[in-house]
C-alpha cells in the first residue's frame, strides 16, 4: 500500500515537472512570437500599477515622513530631553549634561533655556484709541550657537539677516511665523493669531518676561535675523544666546528646559536606556525624535497610510482585471488551439501553466522596471527635490522591504489573474473547442 502511494506521488511529481517544462516552453514561444506592441503595452500597465502601489502611498507617507525628518534634523535631534510636565526645568541638568558629553554614543548636544515671553514690535509710539498694540507672544530660547549648529545646523534656517554668534549681546533671531511680513498665515485673518507688524532685521523690539514672583523683566533687543522652517518649534520661537538669557533672567546655572541630542542612529535605543537609568531618580521626559513628534502628525500619518493602502488596493484590482482580461482574450482567441493541444494529449495543467507563466512574465518585468524607476530615479529625485508642501518637504518613502512585499502581492494577484481565465477556457470540452462549437 505504502509502495503504491509512494509510486503514485512520484508519478504525480514527474507529471508535474513535465507539465511545468511544457508550460514554460509554450509560454516562452508565445511571448517571443506575440505582438511586441501588445506585450509592451501590458508591461507598461504593470509598471504603472507597480508605481501606483509604491509611489502614490510612498509620497502620501513621504509628506509626513518629510515633516518627521525636518523635526528631527531641525529641532529635536535624535533624542530630546525636556522638563517633566509641571516642572520649570530639567532636574539634575548639570550632571546630565556632563553625562551626555562623556557618553560614547553622543555626537553632540544642545542644551537650551526657554521661557514664555511677549514681544512688542512698536516702541516709538503708543497705540491709538481702539488700536491693538503691536504685540505677539512666543517662547524665547537661549542656546549656544556653536552647540546648536552641531546638532541642528541652525544657521541654515536664517532667511534674513545673520545667525547668532556666541558673544552676541542684545540680539535675537525671530521666527518667521511671528512676523506679518514673513508668515504664510499672515493673510488668513485667524482670530487670536497676531503678528508683529513692521518688524524686520534691524528692528528694535521689547521682550517682556513675567515672573512667578516680582515684577516682569523687560529688555529691548535688536532683530539680527529671521528664521524660517516648516517646523513650528523654529518658526514660532525667538532665539538668543544662552549667555544672554542667563544674564537677563533669574535662572541658575544650567537649569535647562530642553536638551537636543545628536547620536549614532543605530545606538539611539541604547542611549535612551542609559539616560533613563542615569536619570531614574529625577522627573524628566526623555523621548526619541519619533516619540516627540506631535500626535496630530501621527494621526495624519495614519490617515495617509490608510489613503495610500486604499489607492494601492484599487491599483491592484485594476491590475488584476487588466491581466485577467488580457489572458482571457488571449485564451478565448486560442480556444481552438487549446482544444487541439488537449486532443493530441497535452496535459491541461501544462496549458494552464503556460498562461500563468505569461501573466507572471508581465508582472515580473513590470515590477522589475518599476523597482529600477523607483530606486534608481524617483527616490533619488524626490530626495534631492522634495515636494514643497506648506507643512513639510515631501519625500518618497520607499524601502526595499516594502517594495519586496508589494512585488509579492502584485505577483500573487497576477498569478490568479492568469490562472482563472486559463482554467475557464481549458476546462471546456475538447472536441467542442476543436470544432469551435
Amino acid at each position, binding site marked *: 500500500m505504502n509502495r503504491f502511494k509512494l509510486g503514485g506521488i512520484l508519478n504525480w511529481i*514527474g507529471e508535474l515537472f*513535465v507539465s511545468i*517544462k*511544457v508550460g514554460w*516552453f*509554450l509560454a516562452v*514561444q*508565445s511571448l*517571443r*512570437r*506575440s505582438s511586441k506592441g501588445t506585450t509592451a503595452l501590458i508591461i507598461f500597465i504593470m509598471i504603472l500599477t507597480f508605481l501606483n502601489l509604491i509611489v502614490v502611498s510612498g509620497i502620501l507617507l513621504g509628506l509626513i515622513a518629510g515633516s518627521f525628518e525636518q523635526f528631527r534634523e531641525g529641532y529635536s535631534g535624535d533624542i530630546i530631553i525636556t522638563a517633566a510636565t509641571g516642572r520649570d526645568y530639567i532636574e539634575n541638568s548639570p550632571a546630565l549634561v556632563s553625562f551626555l558629553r562623556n557618553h560614547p554614543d553622543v555626537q553632540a548636544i544642545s542644551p537650551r533655556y526657554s521661557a514664555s515671553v511677549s514681544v512688542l514690535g512698536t516702541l516709538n509710539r503708543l497705540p491709538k484709541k481702539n488700536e491693538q498694540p503691536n504685540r505677539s507672544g512666543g517662547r524665547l530660547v537661549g542656546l549656544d550657537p556653536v552647540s546648536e549648529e552641531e546638532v541642528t545646523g541652525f544657521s541654515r534656517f536664517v532667511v534674513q539677516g545673520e545667525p547668532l554668534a556666541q558673544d552676541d549681546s542684545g540680539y535675537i533671531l525671530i521666527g518667521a511665523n511671528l512676523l506679518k511680513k514673513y508668515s504664510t498665515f499672515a493673510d488668513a485673518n485667524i482670530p487670536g493669531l497676531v503678528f508683529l507688524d513692521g518688524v524686520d532685521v534691524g528692528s528694535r523690539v521689547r521682550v517682556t518676561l513675567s515672573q512667578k514672583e516680582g515684577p516682569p523683566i523687560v529688555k529691548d533687543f535688536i532683530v539680527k535675523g529671521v528664521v524660517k522652517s516648516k517646523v513650528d518649534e523654529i518658526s514660532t520661537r525667538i532665539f538668543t544666546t544662552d549667555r544672554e538669557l542667563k544674564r537677563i533672567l533669574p535662572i541658575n546655572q544650567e537649569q535647562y528646559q530642553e536638551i537636543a541630542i545628536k547620536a549614532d542612529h543605530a545606538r539611539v535605543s541604547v542611549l535612551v536606556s542609559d539616560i533613563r537609568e542615569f536619570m531614574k531618580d529625577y522627573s524628566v521626559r526623555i523621548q526619541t525624535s519619533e516619540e516627540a513628534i506631535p500626535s496630530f502628525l501621527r494621526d495624519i500619518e495614519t490617515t495617509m497610510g490608510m489613503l495610500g493602502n486604499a489607492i494601492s488596493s484599487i491599483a491592484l484590482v485594476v491590475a488584476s482585471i487588466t491581466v485577467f482580461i488580457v489572458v482571457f482574450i488571449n485564451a478565448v482567441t486560442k480556444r*481552438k*488551439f487549446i482544444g*487541439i*493541444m*488537449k*486532443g*493530441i*494529449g*497535452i*496535459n*491541461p495543467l*501544462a496549458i494552464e501553466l503556460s498562461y500563468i507563466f505569461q501573466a507572471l512574465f508581465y508582472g515580473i518585468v513590470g515590477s522589475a522596471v518599476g523597482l529600477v524607476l523607483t530606486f534608481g530615479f524617483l527616490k533619488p529625485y524626490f530626495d534631492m527635490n522634495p515636494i514643497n508642501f506648506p507643512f513639510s518637504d515631501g519625500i518618497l518613502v520607499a524601502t526595499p522591504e516594502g517594495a519586496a512585499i508589494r512585488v509579492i502581492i502584485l505577483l500573487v494577484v497576477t498569478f490568479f489573474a492568469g490562472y482563472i481565465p486559463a482554467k475557464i477556457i481549458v476546462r471546456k470540452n*475538447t*472536441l467542442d473547442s*476543436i470544432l469551435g462549437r
Partner: protein
Amino acid sequence: MIKAENIIKKFGQGELEFMALKDISLEIKDGEFVAIIGPSGAGKSTLLYQLSLLDEPTSGEVFFQGIRTSKLNQSEKTKLRLNELGYVFQDFALLPELTAVENVALPMLMQGMKHGSALAKAKIALARIGMADKLRNLPSQLSGGQQQRVSIARAIAHDPHILFADEPTANLDSANSRLVMEAFSELNRSGQTIVMVTHEDEYAHRATRIISLRDGELVGDGR
C-alpha cells in the same frame, strides 16, 4: 487493435434529438489502412471522434488494445491519446506560435522527452515527409499542403499505435492532396495503422479497407 461495440451517438434532446451513429460495431486490426467514407452527414467524423477518444459515445463501448475506454478518466484518456494515438485534422491544426519543428516536437516534450531529443526526432519526422527545409518556418509561412505535412509529422513523430485523420485533404489542392495521400500510403506500408475519414473515392481506394456509412449506419465494410 481498436474495437467498437454497439456505438450509438445522439445529439440534442427531446424533439431536437438526432442520432448520428446507430449501433455501429467494428474492429480495426494493427497495420490496417481504413478509410471511412459516406455522404455528408453520414456520421464519418463522429465515428472517428468516438474511435479516437476525442468524444464519448452515448452508449456502446470502445476498446483500445483490450482496454475498456469508458472506464478511463479524462487524465488517463489524455495520456492514452498522447502515447498511443496520432491526429491529423482537416484544417491542419498547427499551433501558430510554434515553428514546424516545435509543433512536431510538442507531444514528445509532453511525453517527458528531453528538449534536444524531441527536436531531433521531430526533424527526422519532418524529413520523412519531405519538410526538412521548413523546420524553422511558422505555420503562417507555409502553404496549406506544407502545413498538412507538418501536421502528419506531428502525428507520427512519437510513433503512435494508430493514426487518425479527419478529411486530411479537404483543404488542399489536388497536387498537395496526392502528396499527403502518398505519405499515408508510405506510412501504412511501413506498418502504421491509419484510420482516415474522406469523402473522395480516389483517396479512399488507397486504403486497404473501406467502411461506408449512411445516415449513421454502417452500410459497407470491404477491402
